[in-house]
C-alpha cells in the first residue's frame, strides 16, 4: 500500500507538468487580476515557487511539505489548500453517504427480488431498469429530477446545501447509477449463493424462505458486494463532481473543477492526492470489513 501511495504522489505531482506552456505566466496573470505580468515578475515567481529547479528536487520538496501536513496555499484563494479541502469535505461526504444509502436501498431489495425470480418478469424488469440507471448521463437525470420534483411538484429546493430536503435529489442522482451497478452485483452474488448447498441445508431445517434468503443467503451474498461497493466509492467521487455542479453543492468536486479551470495547481494537486489517499484507504477499510463479515478470512493475516 505504501508503494502505491508513493506512486500516487509522484503521479499527482507530475500532473502539473502536463500543462502546455508555462504555468507561471497564467498563474501570475490571474493573481494580478488579469494584468500581464512582467518578465521579471515571472522569473521571480519561478524562483520563489522553486519552479526553476530540477523536477525531482521539486518533488522531494513537495512531498516533504505534504508529509508535514502542508498542502501549500492556493494561488488565488490565499488560503491553505488543506483548509479549502477540509471546508469542502462535509458537503461531499454527506452527498456520498446519502448517495450510497440511496443506492443500497434501491439495489439490495431489487437485486434480491431479481435473483429470487430469476428469468421471470421481475428479474428482466429490474435488470433492464438497472441498466437504464447506469446508461443515463447523471447530469441529465439531475435536471429531469429538478424539473419534476422541484419545479412541477415543488417538493425540494433546486440547489444548494441545507437540510435533508436539499440532499434528496442530489443523492438520488448520484445513487441511481451506483444502484444499478450494485443491483447487478447483488443479483449475481445472490444467484451464486442460492445455488450453494448450505441454502438447502437451511431450507431442510424447515426455515421460512424469508429467513433463508435474508439471513442465510443475503449475509453471504453481501460479502462480495461490500468489497465492490467499497471499491465503487471512487465511482461516487466521480459522480459527485457532476452532481455537485448540477445541484450547486460546494463540495470537493466543485472545488476541483474550479481549480482545474483556474489552473490553481496546489489545489488540484492537493485534491487529487487527498482523493487518491481516501480511495486507497477506503479500499483498505473494505479489506478490513471484508474480514469482519467473512469469518473465513482471519484477522491479522497478511495485508500486503
Amino acid at each position, binding site marked *: 500500500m505504501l508503494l502505491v501511495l508513493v506512486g500516487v504522489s509522484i503521479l499527482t505531482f507530475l500532473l502539473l507538468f502536463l500543462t502546455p506552456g508555462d504555468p507561471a505566466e497564467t498563474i501570475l496573470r490571474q493573481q494580478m487580476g488579469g494584468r500581464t505580468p512582467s518578465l521579471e515578475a515571472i522569473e521571480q515567481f519561478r524562483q520563489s515557487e522553486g519552479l526553476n529547479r530540477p523536477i525531482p528536487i521539486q518533488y522531494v520538496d513537495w512531498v516533504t511539505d505534504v508529509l508535514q501536513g502542508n498542502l501549500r496555499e492556493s494561488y488565488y484563494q490565499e488560503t491553505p489548500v488543506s483548509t479549502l479541502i477540509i471546508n469542502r469535505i462535509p458537503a461531499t461526504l454527506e452527498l456520498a453517504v446519502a448517495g450510497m444509502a440511496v443506492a443500497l436501498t434501491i439495489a439490495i431489495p431489487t437485486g434480491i427480488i431479481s435473483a429470487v425470480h430469476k428469468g421471470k418478469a421481475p428479474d428482466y424488469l429490474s435488470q433492464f431498469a438497472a441498466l437504464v440507471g447506469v446508461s443515463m448521463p447523471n447530469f441529465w437525470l439531475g435536471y429531469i429530477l429538478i424539473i419534476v420534483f422541484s419545479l412541477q411538484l415543488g417538493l425540494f429546493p433546486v440547489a444548494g446545501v441545507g437540510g435533508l430536503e436539499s440532499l434528496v435529489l442530489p443523492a438520488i442522482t448520484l445513487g441511481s447509477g451506483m444502484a444499478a451497478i450494485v443491483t447487478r452485483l447483488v443479483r449475481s452474488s445472490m444467484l451464486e449463493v442460492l445455488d450453494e448447498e448450505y441454502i438447502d*441445508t437451511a431450507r431442510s431445517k424447515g426455515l421460512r424462505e424469508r429467513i433463508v434468503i435474508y439471513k442465510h443467503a443475503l449475509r453471504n451474498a453481501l460479502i462480495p458486494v461490500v468489497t465492490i461497493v467499497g471499491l465503487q466509492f471512487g465511482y461516487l467521487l466521480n459522480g459527485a463532481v457532476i452532481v455537485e455542479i448540477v445541484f450547486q453543492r460546494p463540495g470537493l468536486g466543485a472545488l476541483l473543477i474550479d481549480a482545474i479551470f483556474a489552473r490553481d495547481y496546489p489545489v488540484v494537486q492537493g485534491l487529487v492526492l487527498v482523493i487518491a489517499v481516501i480511495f486507497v484507504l477506503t479500499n483498505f477499510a473494505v479489506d478490513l470489513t471484508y474480514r469482519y463479515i467473512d469469518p473465513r478470512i482471519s484477522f491479522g493475516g497478511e495485508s500486503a
Partner: protein
Amino acid sequence: MSETLLEVEDLHTRFATREGTVHAVEGVSFSVDRGEIVGVVGESGSGKSVTARSLIRLEDPGYIERGSVRFDGIEMTDADDRTIRRVRGDGMAMVFQDPMETLNPVFSIGEQIVESIKVHESPEKQGLLDYLNVPLFSSRGKRSQMRQRAIDLMSEVGIPHPETRVSAYPHEFSGGMRQRAMLAIALAREPDLLVADEPTTALDVTIQAEILQRIRDLNEELDMAVLMITHDLGVVAELCDKVVVMYGGQVMEEGPVEDVLTNPKHPYTESLLGCMPQTCARGEPLNVIEGRVPSMVGEPTGCPFASRCWCSSESCTSGELPTEQVGDDHTSRCHHVEELSESMEAEQ
C-alpha cells in the same frame, strides 16, 4: 410394530434443461418403517440423491411430475409450504453429502444448531428479526438456553469440547467434525426420519466408520429411522436393514440387505457387487442439476441398464419393466430374473 413411516410411490422427478427434460427419478417406490435403516444404493447419476431431495421437497430446480411421498400420513407432494416446513422442522431431517459446503460459512456452528432448535420448538413462529438476532426481537435468556442445548447436541454427536467449539465457525472444523455438526443440526429437530445423502463419502475412512457408528447409535437410542443414500454397498452391508438399488432413475431391486447382497436378483446389483471393494471409486460429486445426465434426457424406454447388461434381450429395450417378487419383501425389476437365478446357481 413395523409401522410404515415413509411411503414413496411411483415418484417421478424431472428437470427441464436446455437439452431437454431430464428424467432423474422415474417411478420410484419404496417404504421406510419406523426405526428402520434403509439404504438407497446406486452409482452417481442414478437418481438416488434427487429421490432423497424430493422426499423433503428440495427437488428444485427439478419438479415432481407425479407420484406420491407420504410421510407419517402427510402427502408431501402436494403439501403447502407450511406443512413442508413443519415436516422438515420435526419429522424428516436431512444430512447432505459434502460437509464442506453444507454449513453456512458465516454463522457459527452454535448459531446454526440453535436455529434448528428454534424451528423445532415453534415451526410456525419464525420472525425474521428474531432469527437475525436483532436485540429487541430475540430473547437473550432463551438464546443461552438454546445454546446449552446446542452444546449438549454437539457432545451427543461426538464433538469434543463443545463448550468452546459452539462459537467456532465451520471453516475452523475438520470435515468429520462438520458432518457431526450437520448431524447435530438434524438431531436438534428430533426427527423421526434422518435422510442421509452420502454422509461419509467425502470423509476419511476412519472418520467414515465413526460417523456411521454414531448414526447407528442414534438410530438405536432414539428409535430414529434412517434413509441412507450411498453408492457404497459396504456401508449398506454394515448399517442397513433394507436396501433399494437404483439405476437410471429407477429401482432395480429392493429387499432385505442380507438377501439382496448375498443373493442379488438383478444383473445391475450383481455388477455392483462385483466391483464393490476397490473399483467403486469414491464420490465424484453427483450433478444431476446441471443436466449432465444425458442418458436420462427424454422419455426412457425399457430397462435403463440394458445397454450395459450382459443378459439383455430385445424385450429389455422397450416397454415397462416387470416387478418380480423374488423372495420375502424382495423384488427385482428384470425381464430375466428367471434366467439370472438359474445362471447364478449354475455358477455356484
